[in-house]
């Protein structure tokens, strides 16, 4: 690409996206006017979701291509700035957009592990991988493993690992798509999943990486605008300062002061909190008592208790002046009574745990690793382990690394990592501010207000979804206590526009932003999976003489198959989203990072080292998760108290050890491979070999 045309390309891109941003703002204004004219909220939600998905489809259709290099790496002419935005959207998933602020709200300082891990990893990408991969310049990450270590075995392990971690991650994204679509349009979750899937496919199906890149830039713009507006508004409301990131330090001080009041039973508010906690303590003990009786009495106890309830209901009905509501409640108690011992055990264990969670004092938001010394040390260890796994995982997830193949040069690749992190940073340093501002609102405005006049967003969300917002007057004093409120993490971002008192159009915008975040990440991941299968398995291993049209046809076909399969798995609702995401990072960190980094920085690393390192890293990580994560039901003891989500810690260690030991035990790689390493280390060498695939 000649200088002139790349510069022209860059300036026309800037023009397109400026127009696009202007058009989007105009669109939001029009919807706002429609809202003022009285169009119902549900219609506004439809308009928002349908318009943005159609927009992505439009970009997808315009970017359709039949050229291999365009399809796999967007023609290698994406300027650093735009590649940064695309990486930002590719990177920030439904978990970042919707879940992160909520995680921070619920876990305070300890939740910052995600913020640190998901940004700091880019230092590793920038310093250890991106420029070198760009110089190598082929299509996929297994390509690099195949060339650097020789033979099909390292490539195959790479393909397997790329598919495993991308698939785990994509399920979390499609889940997010389904959640947003179903919440804002009222469709069934599983229909929402497949509707969202259509949105994902229109972006990537026709144009591969080229289409995905240009839609991701568009999606980044929507998601960042959608995230910022409500937070800025909330900040103005509480502090008068439109820069939430600066203003919230003082809000945090107030939150901390409020936490002290609520935890101090000598203050009036603190006394009320203590009263509610005592009631929960009673409920916990009651549930535990029932569990104990069940263990001793078994089925007989269960039948007796049920009999008592039925008797009470019958007595009530026998009275001439029976209150119909009380009768219905008594009947419901009989109908809801656990049918067998297993169901009873499950229900009462859950009740005891739920009540127990409410007996603890208010968590201190800014305090790191709260608890007694042993708990605190355990938390600190897990915090740092999680940060490390997320960072190294960042520097190993194929869908992110792949993006640095698309820049025009090594120089641009380096700048592009800077832009990537800059654009990611904008959202990630806002999320902690949002968490604190929302907490301030809840602690000062909601707590202490009267049940008869709850803020409208509270009653609205409490009626939509009990898992996001539930509020009950436990001590019957008519005043809200903090312990009477249960908030689900996802609520924070979804409800911020309403907390800030913004019109519904902003809620629609936030939904569109969440959808953009989930769709863009899902696109990148599906493309990674389809490319690993079509390029690495089919073209490089099965049929190296395949014609271009055939390669692309296979790639698109696989994309469709993988997407439908992923949507099907998602509709079964497996596991916990945050765990799935964390697992993907641990798996990637264990499988790829040691072989990739040592492949550049250690010439002595060879084929057998890579094979042993990658397979043992991946193996140990999978084994540890299988043994310890409750979902699989094995529940083996933890190693050094490290939680299953950070299993990558052991995987990485095994991976590095495997590469080093395996390489030293076998012969050094030959001259050709050593030349390849020099080739990737220098952006330009005289008499250099050429590895870049056109």
């Amino acid at each position, binding site marked *: 690409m000649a200088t002139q045309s790349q510069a022209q390309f860059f300036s026309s891109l800037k023009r397109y996206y400026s127009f696009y941003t202007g058009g989007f703002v105009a669109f939001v204004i029009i919807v706002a006017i429609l809202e003022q004219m009285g169009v119902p909220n549900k219609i506004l939600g439809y308009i928002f979701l349908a318009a943005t998905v159609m927009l992505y489809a439009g970009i997808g259709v315009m970017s359709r291509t039949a050229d291999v290099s365009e399809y796999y790496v967007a023609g290698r002419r994406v300027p650093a700035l735009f590649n940064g935005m695309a990486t930002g959207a590719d990177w920030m998933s439904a978990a970042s957009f919707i879940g992160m602020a909520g995680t921070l709200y619920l876990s305070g300082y300890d939740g910052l592990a995600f913020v640190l891990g998901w940004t700091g990893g880019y230092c590793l990408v920038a310093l250890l991988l991106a420029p070198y991969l760009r110089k190598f310049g082929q299509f996929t990450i297994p390509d690099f493993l195949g060339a650097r270590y020789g033979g099909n075995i390292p490539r195959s392990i790479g393909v397997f690992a790329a598919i495993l971690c991308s698939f785990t991650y994509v399920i979390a994204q499609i889940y997010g798509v389904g959640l947003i679509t179903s919440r804002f349009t009222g469709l069934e979750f599983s229909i929402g999943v497949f509707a969202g899937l259509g949105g994902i496919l229109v972006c990537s199906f026709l144009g591969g990486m080229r289409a995905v890149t240009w839609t991701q830039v568009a999606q980044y713009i929507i998601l960042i605008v959608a995230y910022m507006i409500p937070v800025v508004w909330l900040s103005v409301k509480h502090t008068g300062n439109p820069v939430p990131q600066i203003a919230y330090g003082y809000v*945090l001080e107030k939150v901390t002061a409020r936490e002290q009041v609520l935890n101090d039973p000598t203050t009036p508010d603190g006394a009320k909190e203590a009263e509610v906690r005592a009631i929960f303590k009673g409920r916990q003990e009651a549930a535990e008592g029932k569990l104990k009786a069940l263990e001793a009495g078994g089925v007989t106890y269960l039948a007796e208790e049920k009999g008592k309830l039925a008797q009470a209901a019958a007595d009530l009905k026998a009275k001439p002046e029976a209150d119909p509501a009380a009768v219905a409640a008594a009947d419901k108690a009989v109908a809801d009574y656990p049918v067998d011992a297993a169901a009873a055990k499950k229900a009462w264990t859950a009740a005891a745990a739920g009540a127990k969670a409410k007996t603890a004092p208010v968590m201190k938001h800014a305090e790191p690793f709260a608890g007694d010394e042993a708990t605190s040390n355990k938390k600190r260890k897990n915090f740092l382990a999680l940060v490390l796994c997320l960072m190294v995982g960042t520097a190993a997830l194929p869908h992110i690394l792949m993006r640095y193949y698309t820049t025009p040069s090594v*120089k641009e690749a380096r700048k592009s990592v800077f832009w990537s*992190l800059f654009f990611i940073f904008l959202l990630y340093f806002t999320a902690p501010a949002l968490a604190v501002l929302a907490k301030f609102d809840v602690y000062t405005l909601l707590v202490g207000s009267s049940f008869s006049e709850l803020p409208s967003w509270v009653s609205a969300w409490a009626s939509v979804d009990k898992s996001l917002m539930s509020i009950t007057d436990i001590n019957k004093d008519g005043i809200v206590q903090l312990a009477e409120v249960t908030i689900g993490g996802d609520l924070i971002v979804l409800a911020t526009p309403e907390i800030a008192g913004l019109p519904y159009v902003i809620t629609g915008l936030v939904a569109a932003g969440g959808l953009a975040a989930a769709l863009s990440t899902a696109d990148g991941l599906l493309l990674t999976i389809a490319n690993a299968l079509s390029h690495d398995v089919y073209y490089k291993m099965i049929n190296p003489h395949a014609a271009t049209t055939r390669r692309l046809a296979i790639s698109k076909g696989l994309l469709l198959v993988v997407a439908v399969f992923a949507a099907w798995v998602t509709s079964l609702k497996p596991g916990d989203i945050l765990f799935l995401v964390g697992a993907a990072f641990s798996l990637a960190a264990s499988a790829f990072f040691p072989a990739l980094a040592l492949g550049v920085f250690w010439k002595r690393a060879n084929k057998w080292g890579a094979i042993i390192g990658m397979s043992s890293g991946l193996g140990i990580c999978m084994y540890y998760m299988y043994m310890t994560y409750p979902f699989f039901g094995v529940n083996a003891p933890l190693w050094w108290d490290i939680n299953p989500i950070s299993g990558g810690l052991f995987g990485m260690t095994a991976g590095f050890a495997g590469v080093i030991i395996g390489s030293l035990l076998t012969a050094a790689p030959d001259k050709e491979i050593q030349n390849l390493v*020099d080739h990737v*280390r220098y952006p*330009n060498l005289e008499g250099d070999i050429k590895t870049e695939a056109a």
Partner: protein
Amino acid sequence: MQLTEKHKEYWQRNLRVTGILLAIWFFVTFVIGWFARDLQSITILGFPFPFYMAAQGSLAIYVVIIWYYANYMNKLDQEYGVHEGDE
């Protein structure tokens, strides 16, 4: 393809800057994280220092690290004559 002394020096300088920047990265992430409880009494802009670092400070330092590296290396390429064409 024969590497000259100059080429080797380029790679050494690359390794040095990479090492220094990674040390900074490690310090702001893991050392401050490890001592978070002990640094709690220091306050900055209303934030306890460890909270500030984990929520903003370290993130900003990461951005600067990457920016510095890109600039430094792009200049080093020129200095050692291993830069790419005019793209």
